[in-house]
C-alpha cells in the first residue's frame, strides 16, 4: 500500500501542477482528470474504498463533465489563448508562489510537530453508512436541501442565457427568411 500511495501521490502532484499552469482551459481540465483519479487511488490506499469510488464517480465523473460541458458551450478559441498569454507574463506567478510556499511551510511545521506517524486503518463502507445514517442524519438532510437549492439557482441563472440565445436565433431566422 505505501508503494501504491507513493505512485498515486507523484501522479497527482504532477498532474495538478500541469492543470493549474495550462493556458488552454480544455488542456487544464484534461490534466485535472488524472489528478483526481490519482487522488482516488491515494484515498483507496489510505483505507477508504467507498470514498475512493465516490471520488471517481462524482469528482472525476459528474463535476468534470459539468466543467467540460460549460467549456464547450463558451467555445473559447485561439483569441482567448492569446489573451491568456497576455495575462500570464510569467512573473505573475512570483507572488502567488511565495504566498503558497509560506502556507506550505506552516503546514510542514505543524505536521512535524504532530507526533509519531500512525498506520492507516481500514474503515469500510459499512461503518461509514452507519455513521452517516445515525450520527450525521441531520447533515444528510441539509446536504439534500443544499443540492436542491443549488439546482434551482443554477436553473434560474442559466435559463436567462439560454432563453436569450433562443430568442436571438428565432429573430435571426425570421429576418433571414422573409
Amino acid at each position, binding site marked *: 500500500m505505501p508503494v501504491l500511495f507513493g505512485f498515486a501521490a507523484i501522479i497527482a*502532484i504532477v498532474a495538478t501542477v500541469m492543470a*493549474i499552469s495550462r493556458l488552454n482551459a480544455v488542456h487544464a481540465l484534461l490534466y485535472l482528470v488524472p489528478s483526481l483519479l490519482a*487522488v482516488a487511488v491515494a484515498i483507496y490506499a489510505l483505507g*477508504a474504498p467507498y470514498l475512493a469510488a465516490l471520488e471517481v464517480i462524482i*469528482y472525476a465523473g459528474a463535476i468534470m463533465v459539468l466543467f467540460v460541458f*460549460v467549456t464547450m458551450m463558451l467555445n473559447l478559441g485561439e483569441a482567448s489563448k492569446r489573451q491568456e498569454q497576455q495575462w500570464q507574463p510569467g512573473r505573475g506567478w512570483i507572488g502567488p508562489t511565495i504566498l503558497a510556499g509560506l502556507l506550505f511551510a506552516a503546514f510542514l511545521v505543524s505536521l512535524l510537530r504532530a507526533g509519531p506517524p500512525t498506520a492507516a486503518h481500514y474503515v469500510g463502507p459499512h*461503518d*461509514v453508512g452507519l455513521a452517516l445514517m445515525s450520527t450525521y442524519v441531520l447533515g444528510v438532510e441539509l446536504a439534500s436541501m443544499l443540492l436542491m437549492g443549488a439546482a434551482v439557482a443554477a436553473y434560474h441563472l442559466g435559463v436567462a442565457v439560454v432563453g436569450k440565445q433562443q430568442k436571438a436565433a428565432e429573430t435571426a431566422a425570421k429576418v433571414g427568411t422573409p
Partner: protein
Amino acid sequence: MTHMGLLLAAVLFVLGLAGLLARRNLLMILVSIEIMLNAAGLAFIAAGAAWNQPDGQVMFLFILTVAAAEVAVGLALVLQLHHQTKSVDADRANRMRG
C-alpha cells in the same frame, strides 16, 4: 502513512491556492477551488484513517456535496458573465452596475 496523506493534501491545497491567486480566467479559478476542496477532503480522510473512525469519510461526503453545489452555481454564473461581457476575465466583473 497517514502523515504522507496529510502531506499530499497540503501540497495539493497549496497548488490550488497558487493557481487561484495567479489565474484570471474564471474557469481556471473554479478549477483551483475544486483542487483545494479535494485536498481538504483528502486531509479529512487521512485523519479518519489515523484515528480509525468513519467521521473523516462522512466529512468528505459533505465536502463532495458542497463542491457539487458550488460548481453548479459557479459555472452558471460564469455562463451569465460570459453572456454579458463576452469574456471570462475575472476583472470584467467590476464593471457591473445595478
